[in-house]
């Protein structure tokens, strides 16, 4: 690499960092004050791009029109943020944190379909910035003038934010709430107004980040989850709640990505290393290294102790044997009366039930929330497919070996993850899932890249849909029973104890990290089993089995059913899979319908479906007594 090309890559990186910083600063601000991990933040960014596209068309491709459109789009997105806060989140600030997460997933679904409805499914390529479409020559290379402007915008916004936070009363309140939300409430500050204003500012930043990208990247419907992953990484690397940290991290990651593209393929000691393929992974590698070395990010501080011990977990009650037996008999009997369609759907539900139960095990009783549980489901599916197609193993062997492969990945990923806790842990699990996804997505020669692997069919004796349903029921049912059994074993009790009080667990000699690591491996292997069974039921696999979408589906299932009950995740998996299928057959906009249903449930049953029904039943019993 010449000096000139190093400088060029550096400038490319800094230009890319600008939008990343704006989005991440907004996310960090909102998280700092409200403690909500806002998955819909990426959707706001996406709306910024679409909004700018339409407004430029309306206002004309003049410098005046362009810049008015950018500013108006950002402000409009800010109002959308306010709407989300007032209509949804404000009603559930007292609900468990995970439930707020579920609500933001629902908002993601709704916004995606609104964008689909308004702007259509095609990518929309925006105009170049009028008056800035020329290139500037630097060291003999041409750099778009617009990129240089973006490089300047980052520090300007950082400066404005710094002034807002340190020189205004609002900024003092934001900083105080970031440090100790309850104390600010106790001092008589109107929290509702503070939260709304923070949502407005944070959303404007997301919208601005999106709007400014319109000359550089087409508006499309996949941007929401793509950018939220980037924004999570940056806020976590920089330190949650730290705007300066977000700036630093955005630059590090923007530049690292630019260099990976710039370096291309290099041969070192006879090995060919493709740096451009590292582009999708590099930020997650940086994040993993930073989190292990500095668990609170580069400029972050340990989270303030929350005085309200947020969600005291209720005791866990074992499912009754009799009821379980009734269900098993029912499920065994279904194919006798049901048609092929229902049998296939039930096979899906059974796979997702094990997936959801394994996720519930780790996030509920073991207290480690995972945003990347699809990693193990997807790796199990791919292991099954590759062992069968590429290694030529018999289907039965591939089916049963795949969970071990997923478990092996969980050994590695888990080792890092159990060193962290809370949101940082959740983000690291997401990072590992994205690393797995990138490898599968890019390793064409082995994994088939974005097309996936085809022709993964079960052996002849298992090929019938009904037979395969029984196989799935046997595999996944055993997995669920095993996980439930383990929860009530000394091992499972120790996990619950560690979740309740890590301090006390350590003080009575429990090697909590070791237990949590083992739990990671156990649930990883069983999620892998779910993926393996799923792969052979579909006959093909694609990278979407490892995607963020698959991970959030799992979270929705668990939270929908209720994280505090054992059967909740199973009910959640069944309801979500069934309703999604039923709605998708009637409308193209099934996401919006699902999102709407989830929002209704969130607002009506803050303990999840099973939890809510249980509470209703108890009330009814009390009234009768």
């Amino acid at each position, binding site marked *: 690499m010449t000096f000139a090309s190093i400088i060029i890559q550096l400038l490319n990186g800094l230009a890319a960092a600008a939008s990343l910083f704006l989005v991440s600063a907004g996310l960090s601000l909102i998280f700092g004050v409200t403690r909500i991990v806002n998955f819909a933040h990426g959707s706001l960014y996406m709306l910024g791009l679409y909004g700018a596209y339409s407004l430029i068309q309306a206002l004309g491709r003049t410098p005046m029109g362009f810049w008015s459109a950018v500013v108006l789009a950002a402000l409009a997105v800010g109002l959308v943020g306010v709407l989300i806060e007032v209509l949804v989140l404000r009603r559930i600030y007292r609900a468990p944190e995970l439930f707020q997460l579920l609500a933001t997933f629902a908002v993601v679904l709704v916004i995606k379909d609104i964008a689909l409805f308004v702007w259509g499914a095609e990518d929309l390529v925006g105009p170049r910035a009028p008056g800035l479409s020329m290139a500037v020559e630097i060291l003999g290379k041409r750099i778009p003038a617009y990129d240089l402007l973006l490089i300047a915008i980052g520090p300007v916004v950082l400066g404005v934010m710094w002034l807002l936070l340190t020189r205004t009363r609002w900024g003092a309140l934001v900083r105080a709430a970031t440090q100790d939300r309850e104390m600010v409430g106790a001092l008589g500050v109107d929290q509702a107004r503070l939260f709304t204003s923070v949502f407005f500012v944070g959303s404007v930043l997301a919208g601005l980040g999106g709007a400014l990208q319109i000359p550089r990247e087409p508006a499309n419907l996949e941007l929401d989850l793509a950018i939220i992953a980037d924004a999570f990484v940056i806020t976590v690397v920089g330190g949650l709640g730290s705007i300066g940290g977000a700036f630093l991290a955005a630059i590090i990651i923007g530049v690292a990505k630019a260099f990976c593209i710039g370096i291309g393929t290099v041969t070192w000691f006879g090995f060919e290393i493709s740096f451009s393929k590292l582009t999708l992974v590099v930020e997650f590698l940086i994040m993993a290294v930073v989190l292990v070395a500095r668990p609170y990010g580069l400029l972050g501080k340990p989270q303030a102790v929350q005085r309200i011990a947020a969600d005291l977990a209720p005791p866990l009650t074992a499912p009754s044997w009799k009821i379980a037996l009734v269900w098993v008999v029912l499920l065994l009997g279904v194919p006798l009366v049901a048609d092929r369609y229902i049998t296939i759907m039930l096979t899906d539900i059974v796979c997702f039930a094990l997936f959801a139960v394994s996720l519930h095990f780790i996030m509920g009783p073991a207290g480690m929330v995972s945003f990347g549980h699809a990693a193990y489901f997807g790796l199990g599916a791919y292991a099954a497919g590759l062992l069968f197609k590429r290694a030529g193993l018999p289907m039965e062997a591939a089916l049963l070996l795949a969970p071990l492969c997923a478990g092996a990945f969980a050994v590695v990923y888990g080792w890092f993850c159990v060193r962290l806790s809370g949101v940082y842990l959740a983000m690291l699990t997401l990072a590992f899932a994205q690393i797995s996804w990138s490898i599968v997505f890019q390793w064409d020669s082995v994994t088939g890249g974005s097309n996936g692997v085809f022709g993964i069919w079960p052996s002849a004796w298992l090929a019938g849909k009904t037979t395969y349903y029984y196989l799935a029921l046997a595999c996944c049912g055993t997995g669920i029973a095993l996980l439930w059994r383990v929860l009530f074993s000394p091992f499972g009790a120790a996990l619950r104890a560690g979740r309740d009080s890590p301090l006390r667990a350590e003080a*009575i000699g429990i090697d909590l990290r070791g237990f949590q690591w083992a739990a990671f491996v156990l649930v990883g292997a069983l999620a892998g089993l779910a993926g393996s069974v799923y792969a052979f039921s579909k006959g093909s696999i694609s990278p979407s089995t490892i995607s963020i979408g698959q991970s959030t589906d799992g979270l929705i299932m668990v939270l929908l059913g209720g994280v505090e009950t054992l059967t909740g995740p199973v009910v959640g998996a069944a309801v979500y899979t069934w309703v999604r299928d039923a709605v998708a057959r009637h409308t193209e906009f099934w996401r919006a319908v699902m999102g709407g249903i989830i929002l209704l449930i969130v607002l009506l049953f803050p303990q999840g479906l099973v939890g809510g029904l249980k509470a209703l039943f108890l009330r009814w019993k009390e009234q009768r007594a």
Partner: protein
Amino acid sequence: MSDAVLQVEGLHKAFGGVQAVADVSFAITAGEMLALIGPNGAGKSTCFNMLNGQLVPDAGIVRLAGRDIVGLRPRAVWQLGVGRTFQITATFVSLSVRENVQMALYSHAGRLRSLLHRFGAAFRAEADALLAQVGMLDQAERTCGVLAYGDLKRVELAMALANEPRLLLMDEPTAGMAPRERVALMELTAGLARRRNIAVLFTEHDMDVVFSQADRIIVLDRGELIAGGTPAEVRANPKVRAVYLGSTH
């Protein structure tokens, strides 16, 4: 002092530029109730956290029954026979009172690694015996999350006794309790200590409790030990009076 259960020599700890604990030395023998007192910020909790491995001292030796335990993790210190209660109670709120104590007993016996047995089947009688000693047997079935604060302190004590400790470390054992409960809890502790020959080191703000229950008192101020002796000696010590009353009369 060769029969000391715990012997501390020249303990130092600084945070940034602040010397939190400086050159602290003391010892405690089996069956003895030793109170560590001092004003807020004197370094009591720092001192405590260095004794059970939560903090690593900058310098100094901590010997448990003759063995140096500096650098060991809390769970290793526990395995050597040190029980601990916390200033703010730390119990397993989703488990029942009995299960909390059973958890400590399972851990002591090294039987937590089983995946398929049912937790709670073993050590029931042992847990109930410990609960009876702290007067919590009648609440054994209740979930810890719903207990009154004073009762949680008792559960903690029962858990701390589960590994047959030779040393109990109690950080502010009566904080947050009603005055009558305080004396009752410490009388209970003192009785247990004498009967089972356990050394007890406790910090405490309630001087009634300290002077009525401690066999010996040591006084910490700004990280340094300024006095030590029987309750009568400490009460008469002019330095202690200065620290607590702010004058030297």
